[in-house]
Each structure stands twice: as C-alpha cells, then as structure tokens.
C-alpha cells in the first residue's frame, strides 16, 4: 500500500527524482497562474464585468476580510503570501474529484515546505514592521526566562502545521483506499465528498493559523511602539 504520492517515481537521475508530488504541484501552480493571468488580462470597472472577474474579486475580497478580522489592519501587505497559500492548498485538496489524482498535500515533503515558508514568513513580516532588534525583543517577552520556550514554541508549531495538514489529507486518501477493498460502490464516494469538506477546512485552518502567527509577530511590536510613544508623551 502506498502511503504518499512520493513513492510514484516517473524519472530518476542521481539524487533528483521526478515523482507524482512534484508533477501535481507544478500542474496546480501552472493552473493557478495561467487562469489568473487569463482572467486579469482584461479587467473592467464598468457596471457589467465578466463572470470570472466577479468570482476572482469575491475571492480576493473574502480573503482580505478574513485577514482583517484576525487583526491585521492592512491585509494588502499579507494577501500575497496568505492568499496564495490558501488558494494552493484549497486547489490541491479540491482536485481529488479528478480520477487518478493524488493530492500533493498528502505528502510530508509538500506540507513541510509550506510550514517552513510560514516559519520564515513570520520573522520576515515582524522585522519589516518593527526592525531587527524590535523583532528579536519579542522573544524575551514577558521575561528572559521565556526565551527557550518561545523558540521551542516556534519550532513545535511548524511541526504541528506540517503534521496536521499531512495527516488529514493522507488519512482521507487511506480511508478511501481501504473502503475500496471492503465496500467498493457507494461508501468511497461519500468519503470522497467528506474529503472535499475536510480539504477546504484544512486549507482555511492552515492559512488562518499562518495569519494568526504573523499577526502575533506584527502586533507585539506595534503594541510596544505605542507604549513607548505614550512614555515619550508623558516624559515630554
């Protein structure tokens, strides 16, 4: 029994192996980029816009709204990262309706790559907001004793993001594969429909957690800066 699409190898040369995960990942990337380029080629601001432009505007406005509700005041800075991540995971999980398709998120390497990009994006946005020293100071809050726990928390939440997405998608595929050998007619269809719901929920959870982490890194520094401003006002 194959646990992940990594084990389906098409071509191998040295340490590089072209497996199903890489092929489907690049396929999804191509699909997203080409469709977005085709839709945004003729954007209009009339009363009547094309259907696809309307759909894309709904998606972008919805993601902006969700990011703003978590607490980031200017979602336009962050939608490039969070929105891309959400769309990629949602598309990867929703395409299981196609036959012979295996979701790349059911492979530990894909989810680890996504979680590691979150791991690097959090200090990136934090430093962009408050400077290098200001971001590093967020590690010794509330006291210096908390420094190792903050670092451990940073690592463990990356591992948690990885395992959560991988486990959910992999278990969905595995249950369908097991049910195919027991009751091959109706139940796999129901479980696949449930897998669509799980996939959407997991894409939402992944991106909302990334937003929460980024918001924590950005808001810590902002709160500190307002406190220092207040102190300056009191002193001056």
């Amino acid at each position: 029994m194959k646990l992940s699409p990594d084990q389906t190898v098409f071509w191998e040369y040295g340490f590089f192996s072209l497996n199903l995960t890489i092929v489907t990942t690049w396929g999804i990337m191509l699909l997203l980029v080409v469709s977005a380029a085709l839709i945004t080629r003729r954007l209009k601001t009339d009363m009547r816009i094309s259907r696809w432009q309307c759909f894309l505007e709904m998606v972008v406005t919805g993601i902006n709204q969700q990011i703003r509700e978590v607490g980031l005041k200017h979602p336009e800075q962050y939608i490039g990262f969070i929105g891309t991540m959400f769309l990629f995971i949602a598309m990867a999980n929703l395409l299981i309706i196609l036959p012979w398709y295996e979701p790349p998120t059911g492979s530990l390497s894909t989810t680890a790559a996504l979680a590691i990009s979150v791991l690097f994006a959090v200090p990136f946005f934090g430093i962009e907001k408050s400077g290098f020293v200001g971001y590093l100071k967020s590690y010794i809050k509330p006291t210096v004793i908390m420094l190792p726990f903050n670092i451990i928390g940073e690592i463990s939440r990356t591992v948690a993001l990885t395992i959560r997405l991988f486990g959910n998608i992999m278990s969905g595929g595995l249950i369908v594969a097991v049910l195919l050998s027991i009751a091959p007619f109706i139940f796999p269809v129901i479980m696949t429909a449930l897998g669509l719901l799980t996939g959407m929920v997991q894409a939402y959870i992944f991106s909302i957690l990334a937003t929460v982490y980024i918001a924590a890194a950005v808001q810590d520094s902002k709160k500190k800066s307002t406190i220092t401003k207040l102190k300056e006002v009191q002193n001056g």
Partner: protein
Amino acid sequence: MDSVTTIAIVSIITAGFTTGIGTMFPALSEGKAVVSALQSVAQQPDAAPTITRTLFVGLAMIESTAIYCFVLSMILVFANPFWNHIIAQ
C-alpha cells in the same frame, strides 16, 4: 516465538490502542468545545463569525493531537523502523 513475531504483535496491538485512545479524548474535548460555542452563538448571534472562527482554530488545535496518534499508528503499521531493522539483519 522469534523477535519478528514479537515485534509484529506488539506493533499492531500498540497501533490499535494508540488510535483508539488517541481519538477518544480529542473527540470528547471537541464535543465540549462545540457545545460551549453553540451556547455562545445562541446567546449572542451577533458574535457568530468571531466565535465560529475561533472555534475552527481551536478544533484544529485539538484535532491535531488525534492526528499525531493516527500518524504514529500508521508509522507502526506500514513503516515500522524496528521491523525494518530486524529484517535487514
């Protein structure tokens, strides 16, 4: 009973117990979380979007413990390192 059989028996029984116990308690706590979220929504329907979002994030946090147990039992059944070690000898 040689060591391969022992490892197989122990791994399979442990995998079953891991998934069984490891999904039982997250299920109970997810039920508690959903109950209190529904009560809050019934009391304050205006705050429903915020409560729903927080509920989803919390459910994902709780559920990840069950997922850890599941992944662990999958490793024990399909990619057992001890079994591979004994077989390789």
